[in-house]
């Protein structure tokens, strides 16, 4: 049977026209379908295939047509027309104007030479999709969290067996062949390769490498649990091996929170045999063991970036362990900034969107004073244990308890704005924060921060108070948000912008020392 329909002056973009014809062809009983604009030559093709029916007579070049040949035992033209209408309405509902296949398998038909699947669906459904992707020989970037650890282990074993990457679960950052995935920055390509179990840590290190003038070969993510006893560092080792073999990579950086002892040992063993220099930032990990493995331990992400660059350039490798600011400039800054505070303003409030950056801040500042947090260094410093009289507080706003029902604060800056309103009070002296730019992140986080700061300052001004705000920006000038213009926006609002989180933290540490000694002198 033949059937045809015409939509007068109907314009659908090419993607829609072509994919709808593909989908209609897959309907049961449909033998052939042509969809297109009703031009003379397209009708020639219809005639050529002996699919011309009288309904097509009035069609013109500005009309869309469908001509179908089908088995009337199995379907009717009406059913085809209904299917078409459904496809069109489904398509107009989707936001970017492209047809979207419903499953991985149908997506592979559309992009048969795809080599990587990026998954960010709810965690309880993710394992099945990862398995399917690995079975199809595809590398996986798994952004979803809440994936059971047994699944992670099983799937990573499968990935290793097949020589594939399974980056994640809960992996936020990777740059493969120069393409930033999920949350990653526009960094130069170059000769430093990174395997990171911490997303923001990786972003901080890679952007700092970029700022120092070098580039990245590959940046592989593993997900936060990879170096746990249970998972055994499968992906870190897999990535490490790949970078050792990769001819583009000359220096290797490994980033993770301190791994389980057995896992650390495996990594050190591998580092011992690495023909390329290895920089290891296990954020507060065992520096001596790292040195014994012939690798370079780090004091901060900033230090990791500097060491990697020095090794690449054949320059001496030195610890970056100080605040890079001339004493006189520092003194001037401290006097000016702290001079605007009232004596009862003594508390630090850290509002971080990047969890690992919050961790880095606490590990440094927590050496001298108690810092409460939702990701505390030790259980007695948990948020709920903070005394009613107040204390120093650093929050990771990306943790589940704050993000329920809304996007991560790197995407939705409103979360932090709310914390500015609720947590900045008459005792707050310093707000320490991060700004993470790059693909995936909010289009203009600087603007949101400035707005919060102005509001908080206006509120405090009624009590005759002010606020010191110290920030660092993780990003590059090539990022969609632009490091330079974000920094300017912050500075114009009187926010102190430091070149790295480590520098921001060191400055805050000096401020707190000064406030403390000032308070003692005053008493």
């Amino acid at each position, binding site marked *: 049977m033949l059937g045809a329909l015409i939509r007068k002056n109907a314009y659908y973009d090419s993607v829609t*026209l072509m994919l709808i014809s593909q989908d209609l062809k897959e309907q049961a009983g449909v033998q052939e379908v042509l969809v297109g604009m009703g031009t003379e030559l*397209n009708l020639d093709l219809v005639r050529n295939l002996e699919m011309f029916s009288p309904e097509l007579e009035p069609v013109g070049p500005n009309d869309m047509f469908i001509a179908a040949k089908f088995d009337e035992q199995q379907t009717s033209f009406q059913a085809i027309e209904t299917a078409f209408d459904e496809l069109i309405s489904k398509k107009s509902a989707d936001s970017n104007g492209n047809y979207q296949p419903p499953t991985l398998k149908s997506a592979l038909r559309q992009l048969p030479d795809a080599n990587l699947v990026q998954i960010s669906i709810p965690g309880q459904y993710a394992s099945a999709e990862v398995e399917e992707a690995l079975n199809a020989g595809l590398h996986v970037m798994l952004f979803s969290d809440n994936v059971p650890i047994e699944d992670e282990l099983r799937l990573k074993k499968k990935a290793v067996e097949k020589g594939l990457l399974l980056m994640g679960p809960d992996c936020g950052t990777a740059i493969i062949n120069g393409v930033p995935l999920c949350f990653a920055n526009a960094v130069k390509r170059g000769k430093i390769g990174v395997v990171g179990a911490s997303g923001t840590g990786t972003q901080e290190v890679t952007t700092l490498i970029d700022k120092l003038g070098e580039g990245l070969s590959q940046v592989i993510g593993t997900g936060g649990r990879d170096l746990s006893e249970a998972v055994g560092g499968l992906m870190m080792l897999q990535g490490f091996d790949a970078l050792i073999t990769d001819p583009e990579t000359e220096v290797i950086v490994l980033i993770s929170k301190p791994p389980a002892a057995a896992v650390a040992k495996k990594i050190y063993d591998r580092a011992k045999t690495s023909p390329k220099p290895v920089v290891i930032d296990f954020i507060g990990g065992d520096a001596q063991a790292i040195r014994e493995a012939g690798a370079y331990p780090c004091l901060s992400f900033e230090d990791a970036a500097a060491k990697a660059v020095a090794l690449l350039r054949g320059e001496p490798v030195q610890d970056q362990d100080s605040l890079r600011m001339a004493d006189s400039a520092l003194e001037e800054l401290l006097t000016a900034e702290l001079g605007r505070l009232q004596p009862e303003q003594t508390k630090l409030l850290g509002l971080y969107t990047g969890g690992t950056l919050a961790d880095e801040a606490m590990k440094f500042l927590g050496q001298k004073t108690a810092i409460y947090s939702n990701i505390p260094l030790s259980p007695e410093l948990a948020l709920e244990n903070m005394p009613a009289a107040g204390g120093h507080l650093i929050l990771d706003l990306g943790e589940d308890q704050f993000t329920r029902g809304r996007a991560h604060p790197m995407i939705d800056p409103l979360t932090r704005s709310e914390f500015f309103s609720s947590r900045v009070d008459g005792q707050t002296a310093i707000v320490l924060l991060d700004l993470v730019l790059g693909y995936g992140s909010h289009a203009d986080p600087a603007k949101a921060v400035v707005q919060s700061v102005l509001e908080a300052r206006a509120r405090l001004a009624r009590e005759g108070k002010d606020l010191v705000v110290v920030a660092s920006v993780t990003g590059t000038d090539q990022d969609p948000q632009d490091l330079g213009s974000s920094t300017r926006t912050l500075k114009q609002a009187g926010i102190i912008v430091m070149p790295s989180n480590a520098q921001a933290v060191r400055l805050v540490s000096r401020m707190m020392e000064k406030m403390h000694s000032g308070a003692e002198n005053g008493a």
Partner: protein
Amino acid sequence: MPPLSASRISGDLVEYLADSKPHPARVHSLFTRAFNLKVADGCLVSGTNSRGYIAPMGFSFQSLQTSGWPFSLDQELILHPGGVCSASGELLIDFSNAAIWNPSLATIYLPLEQQERCLHLLTRILAGSQNGIFTPLLPGIFGEELPSDLPLHAAFIAPRVFSFFGHLANSEWQAAALDSEGLIGFGSGLTPSADDFLAAILGLYTALPLDVKENKAGFSLVAERILELAPARTSLVSAEMLRHAANGRLPSPHQSLLAALDSGSVFEVEEAARAVLNVGVNSGGDFLFGLLAGLVLMAEAKMVLCDQIKEIDQC
């Protein structure tokens, strides 16, 4: 609602509106990332927020800006130098902050060895792309045998493409002009595949230097014939694209690709070609196919565009 602010506007649209008269228009077609306005005299003006994209007689917005267009299909509008207004005079789109983009192609001078490199590179990119109705015909433009299992559309159009191609190669302009009738408007898509192919060839020929005059004069016969036939044989959107291409104006990604060919930078060519492939589903591939066909023709016709020509041109 504040008006949408256009970030770029094409120079030909600025000129077109420069008479300061209000131009009545109607919303002709709406897509998620683009729309077309049909001005009373029949020409189309397009707006888009696809990143980096702008077309002749068009304007663009910052990508990701706008959650919807401020008008509906068939709505009456007024275009003037300051922007687009509703019939009641409310400003819907503001041109005052837009930077002017020049849609005209610069002359390209391709030394022979560079032509070969570009041919190589583009062939590799296109063959690996799975994009384009014409792409399965690639072996044919290098004089090789076509695969026996060609897809439907490719099989239908193959004899016509190679007849056209052969006539161009032999400078048989009349015959090529006649062939074009068998191509215009063919294929899937809002701009049918063959039109993308023709636009590439039109664009390439118009961008050649003056010294290949003989070829240009001959080719203008073909171009005229295409423009004569297009309004009745293809969609308005496509006919407008052909008209612009024949006058040396292409959308920004296509224009950048021609410029990149001339720059000699493999990296730039690759980047620009991929951007073109991202246009539509097959549109980019069919354009690239046309460009490849054109480059092969140039090489065969010994249209060696050497530095000497460049000097003559610049005198």
